[in-house]
């Protein structure tokens, strides 16, 4: 009489499953698949939507696929530094230049001067090629018009940072945490450069009670202000204009002494696919990505050949801090951030 092995079907399925899973695993680790088209790994400080638009274009033109992890700039800086012994990413997309400076000083970036960087202004890129600027963005005060009307009626909008200390704004302002966010750090660094460190600390100390929250990501304050969760969001201008374009009732003001960020790009040293990273850098500095990004981020490209987007603002027509020294800001970063932490 024949015997049944009643576990055979389950064993068969288990074997198939194991083979499939192992295959997927190997594929991911890059063992299978040609080296040519190995993926590029990107840490993006840009909003993921924007980054993906650009990278999809890159993929369409070069065939190189990507893995992306979106991080706030503070986290991205920390990660790249922590991973120095075994870098996970190839390319750092976005993030204020002072963050890139910090990384340069830490020796974790790869210098590469792309031919497409020739027309980028000298104070918008690293002379040694460790990072290249991509866009410009001043700090701005973003106001939810409707909410302002409800709470403050016809009061005039604040034009300076000091005006934000007014008690009527208690719980109505959102600003990301200057101890960790690149965005807010730019604001305070600029103030420190203009007023001096102590006055800046004093100012922030007084500002804190008016803050509803300190989200870790730079764009959140304006998103939440737009949603009506509070009235004022302090972020970069580009973020605010973007939210406005979505139909939100936002009014933006570039206050006196506003610092600006140069959004930068850099290549991580010893990344898994540096060759692709260089190609990406070349690509980023052509006009197309600049157009894609600035149209959705409403910032200004560093390249003159990229027009100011519809609905954008020309920075030169505002009272921003034209003398903002981002290298100084980078140098002061640790000291200032530590001092800020003490305020909590």
């Amino acid at each position: 009489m024949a015997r049944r092995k009643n576990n055979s079907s389950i064993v068969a399925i288990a074997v198939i499953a194991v083979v499939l899973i192992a295959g997927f695993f190997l594929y991911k680790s890059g063992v299978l698949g040609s080296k040519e088209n190995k993926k590029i790994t990107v840490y993006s400080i840009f909003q993921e939507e924007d980054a993906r638009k650009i990278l999809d274009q890159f993929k369409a033109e070069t065939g190189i696929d990507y893995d992306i992890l979106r991080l706030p700039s503070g986290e991205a800086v920390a990660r790249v530094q922590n991973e120095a012994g075994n870098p996970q990413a190839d390319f750092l997309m976005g993030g204020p230049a002072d963050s890139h400076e910090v990384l340069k000083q830490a020796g974790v970036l790869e210098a590469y001067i792309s031919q497409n960087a020739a027309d980028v202004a000298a104070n918008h890129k690293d002379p040694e090629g460790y990072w290249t600027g991509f866009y410009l963005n001043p700090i701005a005060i973003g106001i939810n018009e409707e909410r302002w009307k409800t709470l403050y009626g016809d009061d005039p909008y604040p034009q300076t940072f000091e005006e934000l200390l007014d008690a009527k704004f208690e719980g109505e302002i959102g600003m990301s945490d200057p101890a960790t966010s690149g965005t807010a750090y730019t604001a305070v660094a600029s103030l420190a450069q203009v007023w001096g460190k102590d006055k800046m600390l004093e100012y922030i100390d007084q500002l804190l009670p008016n803050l509803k929250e300190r989200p870790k990501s730079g764009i959140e304050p304006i998103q939440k202000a737009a949603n009506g969760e509070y009235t004022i969001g302090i972020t970069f201008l580009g973020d605010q204009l973007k939210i406005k374009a979505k139909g939100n009732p936002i009014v933006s003001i570039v206050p006196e002494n506003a610092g600006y960020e140069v959004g930068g790009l850099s290549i991580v040293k010893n990344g898994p696919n540096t060759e692709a990273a260089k190609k990406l850098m070349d690509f980023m500095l052509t006009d197309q990505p600049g157009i894609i990004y600035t149209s959705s981020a409403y910032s200004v490209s560093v390249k003159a050949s990229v027009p100011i987007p519809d609905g954008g603002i020309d920075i030169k027509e505002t009272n921003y801090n034209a003398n903002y020294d981002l290298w100084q800001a980078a140098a002061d970063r640790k000291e200032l951030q530590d001092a800020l932490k003490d305020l909590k």
Partner: protein
Amino acid sequence: MMKEKKGAGESFKRLLKDPSSLVLVLTSFIFLILFVIYPLIVIVFTTDGSDWSTFFTKPRYGTALLNTIVSSTLSALTATVFGFIYAYSIHYSNIKGKKFFRFIAFLPLLAPSVMSGLAFLLLFGRGGFISQWLRSNFGVELDLYGLPGLWIVQTISYFPLAYMTITSVLRSISPNLEVAAQNLGARGFKLFRTITLKLALPGVVNAFLLVAINCFADFGNPKLIGGNYSLLAVEIYGEIINNEPGLASVMGIILVIPALLVFWLQNKVLAKGSYSTVTGKPVAGLNRVTTSKRTDWLLFLFNSLISLMIIAMFLITILYAFTRNFGRDNTFTLDHLQKVVFSSSSPAVMNSLVLSLISALLAVGLGLVLSYIITRKPFPGKKALDFSAVLPIALPGTFVGLALIVAFSKGPIILQGSAILIVIAMLLKQMPVSYRGLTAAFKQVDKSIEEASTNLGANSNKTLGTIVFPMLQKTIVANFVYAFMKNMNTLSTIIFLITPKWVVAAVSIFNYAETGTYYWAAAVAVGLMGATLGTLGIIKLIFRDKVKIFDF
């Protein structure tokens, strides 16, 4: 006077004669020492005096600790109460729609707890659907950020856990006891208070403790909704990002202490035993129902409200996932799903699936090996092995992730940046559960069956493979399914371990929710739930009757 041949030396000698068992024992030891003991030691040694003084002097951290305790206690309380009422209504009342309610209680298990946070934002955030409606129609300003929002979200998130724990206790109470009490004149609330509640108490306490531990370690929801209400798990994350492992470790240790306390309490409560099943089987045909019509009505109302909230949660997520920009642009679109679920540049859901499956397989495998050798084989150090195997249950997920990243990003073994750590982290959380479940199942297998196997010539491995494993099939599959589902939804444990190649769906949801890209968060959530359901469906097809899924 003769002495029995026993002791460490003797059992070790015996082990040497049984090479297949020896391999199993050694593997277990190596694994647990490497991934449980070693990271714990590293954590302790990463801290130094300055870190400790920083923690105790800067008020920000003390506040975080206090907040964590307060919010966890509150959430655990409400979750337990809700879970109890819900479970009571299912087992003790005459309400209609019990199948439906059981199904509802199961739903939140499909999604990471952070999805509750997301749904909460979508509904009750200041720009949320319901808040907007309230504002425009009633001029009511809804601000639920911080403690209130967190309380609500954690209650809903962990209510199913409380419900399941309590339900199994209620089920095991012999109806005879209540019938006897009724026979002696007790009814209504008095009956409930003196008999039912008393008997269910250990289970209720257990549920409370379980939820409390989970709330402690919760990372996603506090980060999304906490606002300025700082919590320990979030602070730990911040310090890791700031490259301060020492300080993070200090907080991790502080986080663990209440968890260990709870764990110890839990063991004490369980040791007291469930006095719910002392005597015999329920008499057939006896009706357990003890509630009045009015109570039934109230219970039904309560359940419906809870169900409504849970359904709303899922509904809003689905709406956001399938419309361009829900609220402003309600056109149906599959674009979001294509971009973040089905694109090769967004393998988050696929990653989750693969890693969860691998880790669940390993969890069950390791749990099986451990339960086999600890239940059946004598060897020195057994107690220590058992302790290390169960210890991770007591450790909050955040702490486990922390320990792994701290231990393996420097030092002799570097695993940072690889998927291995993610798999291990998930493994550490689920293996103890499998181990416990399988040990219980083992104890039910008569020893003589295994003896018969060795008697007929099979060594330990053969016995394990041909006899034990098949007999435990049902339990193994059940544990695998459970581990798989939990792995798919884990966030706090692996948040530190994410690498760009291996972004996991739960983290994706969290990231998108945090940056306000709600439709992508919703899309990934839908993708994740779909993947989970799909896998469960396949498992059900393969194993048919041998596994209990979708039994409502």
